[in-house]
């Protein structure tokens, strides 16, 4: 069993505010193996972007990591001093954000930004750095890279810019890339190109990806495993095909049923009534319990009192008392609203 | 109304006020100045304009804590025997009246022009903005002087004394509207493209209705800060004009007039006649400016 590349243990992110401390991410744990793509999916407010930001050390104050550990290759990175973390960032962890327009500095040429990253983290000459940059740009599908390397970001179109951002992320040969909604701002046809590119490059370079998005379709195409987040907690985590075709957590089941699909002729989409709770009003026990249709299948009102931990459920893990050994025999998790 | 009050005291702005001792001090000071000025006829120890109560023999009395001072004239008296504290209170009244009215008139002109300019755009916008640009190349004092001068000549001295305060208010307002117009125009340009305005257009509402019922409430935020700071400037402008002798007539002296009158006696040793009105002016404007600064930061969503 190889050491996982990234280990997140009991991560808790808090925001002190004058209304009290708000817990945005509440005790989550997961791992990413070398070369694996882990999708982190959830709706807005679920805490997925914050998790990505915490891993790469870019959590904006007053948000802070209140407890837990983040380990990269067995080494703790959540408590590193600023200088140390700076070296880790870029060299070992790369980042791709949503908006290609603001991810690149409009005042510097694309080539300068990439070579700067290479020179900062790898010990190579300027000429060598430039060569590598050209190679990277070609790999990401930018035609005539030797010429375009000296162009400015505004001279690229949206999709091309995102390819440049990917080159930038891969420049120092990191082992892990955090991609936060990398295709959301792009057109559908470009999305497909970028997803294919990301998968191919990461397979070739052996890079792992933590792919944060709200788009289940992108996850289905790209990820090996997926973690479904809800109100700062992980509701379900497991291999992608299992979570999509055989969801075990009532939230995931509802979510999959709510996603329209071409060719499906359903009259009504599955509706989860209500909305994700605000940070100031997270329910006690299981955060999903006020909206859950199965809450009465668990005896003693356990869902409202006790927060469930991730329990084995079929081939995935779900944080749901329905999968506790004591309740499982009474109710099996029904699949009538699952997506297939 | 009760609901709004509750929301205000729950909000970030009040919280920031409570935690800022300097601002609280400034607010209290400003409040004291304003109340003292507003209720001067009832609160002041003497009536400096009632000729029956003024005694020339009391002239040039120094402040009470200096030798030869009298306790009934706390801050001393001027060359005509008028109690300085009372003249300050009455003078502040005129100063504040002119300052606040000028700002309100300025806001009215500026907001309307800015709103119309931003929403309608095109040639009207270009015209209004060019007028604004031209006006900005003149110092505000000069514009006020110009308007005041023209009024004097046009109306004749005697009649002018009667309407001097109004002319002054208009002159200061005319010199200050541009900042409101530009700010409101900028905000209007942003709001105009928002979907709630488009929704109103689809419903079929007239441009006038959209401007005043939809856009206006959303562009007045920054204006509040500008106005608070503008009160300080307007007061100083009025004081300057009065000091120069072209402001309020001597029968209704403002703080500026008092400073001018006292100035003549500064070097003969009767310092209190000019210094105390000067301090009053500084304290008033400083506290208003501090309040304005705090308000700007408190209302800035990015700093919260």
């Amino acid at each position, binding site marked *: 069993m190889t050491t996982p590349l990234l280990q997140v243990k009991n991560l808790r992110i808090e925001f002190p505010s004058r209304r009290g401390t708000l817990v945005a991410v509440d005790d989550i744990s997961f791992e990413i193996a070398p070369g694996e793509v882990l999708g982190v999916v959830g709706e807005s407010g679920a805490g997925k972007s914050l998790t990505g930001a915490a891993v790469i050390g870019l959590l904006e104050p007053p948000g802070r990591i209140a407890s837990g550990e983040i380990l990269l290759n067995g080494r703790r990175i959540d408590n590193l001093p600023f200088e140390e973390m700076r070296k880790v960032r870029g060299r070992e962890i790369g980042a791709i954000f949503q908006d290609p327009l603001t991810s690149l500095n409009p005042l510097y040429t694309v080539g300068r930004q990439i070579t700067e990253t290479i020179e900062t983290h790898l010990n190579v000459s300027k000429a060598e750095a430039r060569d590598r940059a050209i190679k990277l740009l070609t790999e990401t599908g930018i035609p005539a890279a030797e010429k375009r390397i000296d162009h400015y970001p505004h001279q690229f179109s949206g999709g091309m810019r995102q390819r440049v951002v990917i080159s930038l992320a891969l420049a120092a040969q990191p082992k892990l890339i955090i991609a936060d909604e990398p295709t959301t701002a792009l057109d559908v046809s470009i999305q497909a190109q970028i997803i294919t590119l990301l998968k191919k490059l990461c397979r070739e370079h052996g890079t792992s990806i933590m792919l944060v998005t709200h788009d*289940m379709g992108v996850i289905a195409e790209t990820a090996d495993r997926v973690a479904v987040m809800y109100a700062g907690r992980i509701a379900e985590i497991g291999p992608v095909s299992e979570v999509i075709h055989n969801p075990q957590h009532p939230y995931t089941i509802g979510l999959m049923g709510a996603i329209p699909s071409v060719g499906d002729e359903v009259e009504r989409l599955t*509706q989860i009534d209500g909305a994700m709770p605000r940070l100031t009003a997270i329910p006690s026990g299981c955060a999903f319990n006020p909206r859950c249709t199965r809450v009465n299948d668990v005896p003693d009102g356990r869902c409202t009192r006790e927060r469930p931990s991730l329990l084995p459920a079929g081939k995935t893990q779900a944080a749901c008392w329905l999968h506790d050994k004591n309740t499982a025999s009474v109710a099996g998790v029904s699949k009538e609203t699952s997506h297939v | 109304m009760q609901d709004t009050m509750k929301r205000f005291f729950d909000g970030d702005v009040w919280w920031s006020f409570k935690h800022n001792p300097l601002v609280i001090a400034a607010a209290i000071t400003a409040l004291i100045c304003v109340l003292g000025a507003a209720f001067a006829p009832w609160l002041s120890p003497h009536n400096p304009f009632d000729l029956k109560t003024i005694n020339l023999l009391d002239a040039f009395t120094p402040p009470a804590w200096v030798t030869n001072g009298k306790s009934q004239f706390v801050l001393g008296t001027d060359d005509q025997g008028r109690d300085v504290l009372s003249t300050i209170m009455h003078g502040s009244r005129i100063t504040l009246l002119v300052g606040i009215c000028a700002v309100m008139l300025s806001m009215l002109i500026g907001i309307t022009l800015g709103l119309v300019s931003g929403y309608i755009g095109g040639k009207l916008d270009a015209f209004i903005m060019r007028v604004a640009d031209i006006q900005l190349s003149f110092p505000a004092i000069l514009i006020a002087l110009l308007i005041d001068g023209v009024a004097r000549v046009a109306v004749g001295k005697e009649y002018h004394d009667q309407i001097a305060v109004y002319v002054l208010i208009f002159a200061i307002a005319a010199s200050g509207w541009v900042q409101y117009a530009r700010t409101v125009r900028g905000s209007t340009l942003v709001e105009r493209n928002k979907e709630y305005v488009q929704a109103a257009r689809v419903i079929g509402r007239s441009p006038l209705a959209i401007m005043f019922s939809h856009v206006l409430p959303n562009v007045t935020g920054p204006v509040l800060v500008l106005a608070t700071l503008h009160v300080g400037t307007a007061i100083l402008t009025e004081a300057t004009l009065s000091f120069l002798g072209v402001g309020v007539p001597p029968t209704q002296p403002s703080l500026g007039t008092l400073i001018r009158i006292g100035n003549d006696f500064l070097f003969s040793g009767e310092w209190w006649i000019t210094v105390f009105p000067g301090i009053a002016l500084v304290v008033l404007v400083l506290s208003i400016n501090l309040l304005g600064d705090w308000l700007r930061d408190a209302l800035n969503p990015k700093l919260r």
Partner: protein
Amino acid sequence: MSDSKILLEVRDVAREFDVSKPWLNRMIEGQPEQILKAVDGISFTINRGETLSLVGESGCGKSTMARVICGLYKPSRGEVIFDGVDMAKVHGAELQNLRKRFQMIFQDPYASLNPRWRVGKIVAEPILSHNLITDPAALKKRVDELLTQVGLSPLDAEKFPHEFSGGQRQRISIARALSSNPEFLVCDEPTSALDVSVQAQILNLMKDLQRKFGLTYLFISHNLAVVSHISTRVGVMYLGRLVEVAETKRIFQRPLHPYTQMLQSAIPDLKMTGKQRTPVAGEVPNPLDPPTGCAFHPRCPYANERCKVERPSLIEHPDGGQVACHAVEEKRIPIRLAA
């Protein structure tokens, strides 16, 4: 008010924007005038009670089209005919009369409601603007009724928009749109800014309301899955032109135009059936400088010389619907069923 089946007809509508730099700059820099043809000759009809979706990627002009139909932009050429009446030829009171029969729902739930108005006032605006109800008690009753119909509570009328979530704000927008009892709703990406589960609620709501009130929808979206769920017919737009229009089932099961086929392939495969994909080539060209002839030819695997020169027109296809493509007309494309 005619009896015909067609509620809205759009004839050869075009809308151009002059995005040239100011005259002085142009003189000095020697730059030409730049005209953006956001919508370049579009024709279609919408029948009563149906949902027509206009789908396409950024820059295709679908949002501009929606705004032309609602009267926010005047068409540079062509006619918009609502229930037999040419919109350009009506003014004043007659235009207002027509206006209460259609409404628009917008994409951004945060910008489409005036943040300084209470919800009740927002919902009542069309009613008051068209003088439909004057008695305050009756007005309140109507507003309460509308709020309940969209799944909110009458108590919400006293609140401000910022107290609601994105999904709830869209419900308020829908309530406002329904308040004048319209027949026709133009929906500009109403669910694109919403989370998946909230989107499901809003789409279900819209379908229920359509059934209940016999509404006709023009639905603008870039999301093919949403479009396939909610539409009767679908129109695919590219660079300001309509390339294919057909019934939903036909368009998704047997896309004929090469661009439609590519869009189909590009949809992420939730079912992961491992279907064959045509990799989509290139990107949407700059709308300021569109290709000659058929706008799609630089990216089209079936383009020939005719495609580079002659712009194809929408032609009826025996399989149903209309397609604007020379290759389809000349039967050069192998028929391929989508999975």
